[in-house]
């Protein structure tokens, strides 16, 4: 028996392919939405991996530097280094801000780190690591900065000496790494007018400016201008110790919060990305319904256009299941063309997205299965219409 569906598709392949391309673009958008979500999750994991830490020590009762504001003293790490199981401990700061480059501004996350310690970018794609203590930066390639370019962070210019990749915040902002001291200053430094006003207020306060205590005012003023806070301490656990045990000890003996890699991943993915995931999930559901409606409409219209032929086929003895099979195969064919076009489209346009889009094969396979099921369901309307056709309509009168 010949394939009626195949012949019909070949007969009107232009219309079929064009329809499939239209559907494919919609499927491509759906795959991309799924890829955006996967990209967010992957970015979160990469962010944690690239920090090189086993434990994140943050302000008590907060959820860490990526989820909430966290501020701890920059000497906490010394106490941590003395604890059993802690191999390395280093301060880090995170600050999302606009970084100026000439007339242009880029939204970035500025990371302050100590050279050779956890928090340093894991690898470079160009340039070198920081060698000087101040005013050098390593930027993620997504910032668009080039080696040797000068960028402005708050009051100071920094030279881009290295480029790294896949270093973005949980919000997708590319990172710029600068020395910790510079980052602390950038994060907590007040402007000149505020400093003058603060000094005047301190000087006018009789409790802080006692005539009989000559060094007091200078000491108080100095404490106001020097910042000793960081957002987190990254801890590397020594060989033979588990992060969970060390984190428990830190929580027990220090007045801070400590998260292991698994806990931090849970915060990032299940709390930070959760709302975005629901948002994308809604889009996916809507796009699936729209795709189903389009397939149903197209197949239904195509079937209505063949009512007379279907009546003739039924009159000359074609089984209902052959006719239903023809319509079902066409719907599945349309879905297959749409999926192929969608997959190719998503693969081609994904790199152009500002955020990382991760297209996973497993997602594509799931999408193919869903497309096929949706097409099969969408064809039922047309099949129902075809089965209701009375073969008598082929005979005049």
């Amino acid at each position, binding site marked *: *028996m*010949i394939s*009626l569906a195949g*012949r*019909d598709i*070949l*007969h*009107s392949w232009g219309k079929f392919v064009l329809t499939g391309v239209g559907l494919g673009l919609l499927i491509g958008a759906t795959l991309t939405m799924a890829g955006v979500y996967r990209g967010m999750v992957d970015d979160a994991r990469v962010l944690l991996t690239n920090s090189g830490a086993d434990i994140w020590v943050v302000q008590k009762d907060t959820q860490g530097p990526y989820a909430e504001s966290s501020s701890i003293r920059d000497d906490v790490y010394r106490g941590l280094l003395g604890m059993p199981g802690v191999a390395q401990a280093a301060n880090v700061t995170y600050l999302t801000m606009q970084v100026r480059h000439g007339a242009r501004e880029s939204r970035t996350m500025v990371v302050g780190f100590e050279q050779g310690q956890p928090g340093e970018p894991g690898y470079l794609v160009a340039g070198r690591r920081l060698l000087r203590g101040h005013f050098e930066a390593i930027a993620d390639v997504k910032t668009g900065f080039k080696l040797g370019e000068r960028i402005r962070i708050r009051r100071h210019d920094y030279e881009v000496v290295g480029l790294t990749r896949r270093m973005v915040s949980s919000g997708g902002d590319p990172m710029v790494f600068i020395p910790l001291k510079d980052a602390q200053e950038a994060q907590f430094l007040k402007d000149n007018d505020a400093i003058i006003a603060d000094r005047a207020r301190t000087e006018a306060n009789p409790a802080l400016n006692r005539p009989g205590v000559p060094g007091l005012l200078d000491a108080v003023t100095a404490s106001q201008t020097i910042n000793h806070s960081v957002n987190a301490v990254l801890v590397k656990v020594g060989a033979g110790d588990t992060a969970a045990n060390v984190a428990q000890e830190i929580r027990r003996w220090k007045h801070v919060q400590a998260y292991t890699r698994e806990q931090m991943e849970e915060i990032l993915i299940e709390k930070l990305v959760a709302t975005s995931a629901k948002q994308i999930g809604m889009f996916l559901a809507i796009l699936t319904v729209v795709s189903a409606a389009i397939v149903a409409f197209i197949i239904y219209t195509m079937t209505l256009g063949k009512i*007379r*032929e279907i009546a*003739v*086929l*039924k*009159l*000359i*003895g*074609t*089984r209902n299941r*052959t006719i239903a099979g023809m319509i079902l195969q066409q719907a599945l064919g349309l879905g297959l063309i749409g999926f192929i076009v969608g997959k190719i489209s998503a693969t081609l346009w994904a790199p152009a997205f500002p955020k990382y889009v991760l297209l996973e094969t497993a997602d594509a396979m799931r999408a193919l299965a869903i497309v096929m099921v949706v097409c099969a369901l969408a064809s039922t309307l047309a099949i129902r219409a075809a089965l209701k056709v*009375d*073969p*008598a309509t*082929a*005979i*005049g*009168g």
Partner: protein
Amino acid sequence: MDDGIHIEGLSKRYGAGDTAVDALKDVNMRIAPGEVVGLVGPSGSGKTTLLKCLGAVIEPTRGRMTLGSEVIYDSEQGGWKTPDLRALRRDRIGFVFQAPYLIPFLDVTDNVALLPMLAGRTNSASRARALELLQALDVAHRAGAQPSELSGGEQQRVSIARALANQPPVILADEPTAPLDSERALAVVRILNQMASQYQTAIIVVTHDEKIIPTFKRIYHIRDGRTVEEAGEGREIS
């Protein structure tokens, strides 16, 4: 007579009670194998209803129909003799329509071969049968063409070939010459006569077409659901 088609006391009533309409009233017909008869009558006289009853598309209210040597319908013995009317239409009845209604996405050969394929014959055997019929109908040179590439006359010849594909004992032709000019209409009737004779098929031609009515040797006039048989002119087609 053992073959052909034999209709006895066929009636068809639509509706019930006061609104009932008797579309066919005690129709009797007998067409021998190889014979082509005309069925003529004004609009609403019951021609199409009769064709639908003969084509096993609608069920008569009363009567008896015999196809070949087999009773296919007897109202006094439970109606249709076979539950599978689709197979009955496929294997025992050929249809030729006013417009050819060829399947647009199948080429000429497969339009004809489709019926044997539906009946379970192999693709190669079905196509061989199709080519044989296309040869007989002088359209074999268009075997690979799409229906849209054929002229009206060629399309109608292909539809006749399709009707003959499963060698049915009867062909029902519904206004087969309506869209054709005189020359082509007469050509179609000539072909129907040739095929009836060659394949020993009984053919009923429902028509309004004044050009072809004189060519029938026997004509059934139908009026208000009743048929009257009369001899036709049987004019030779040159």
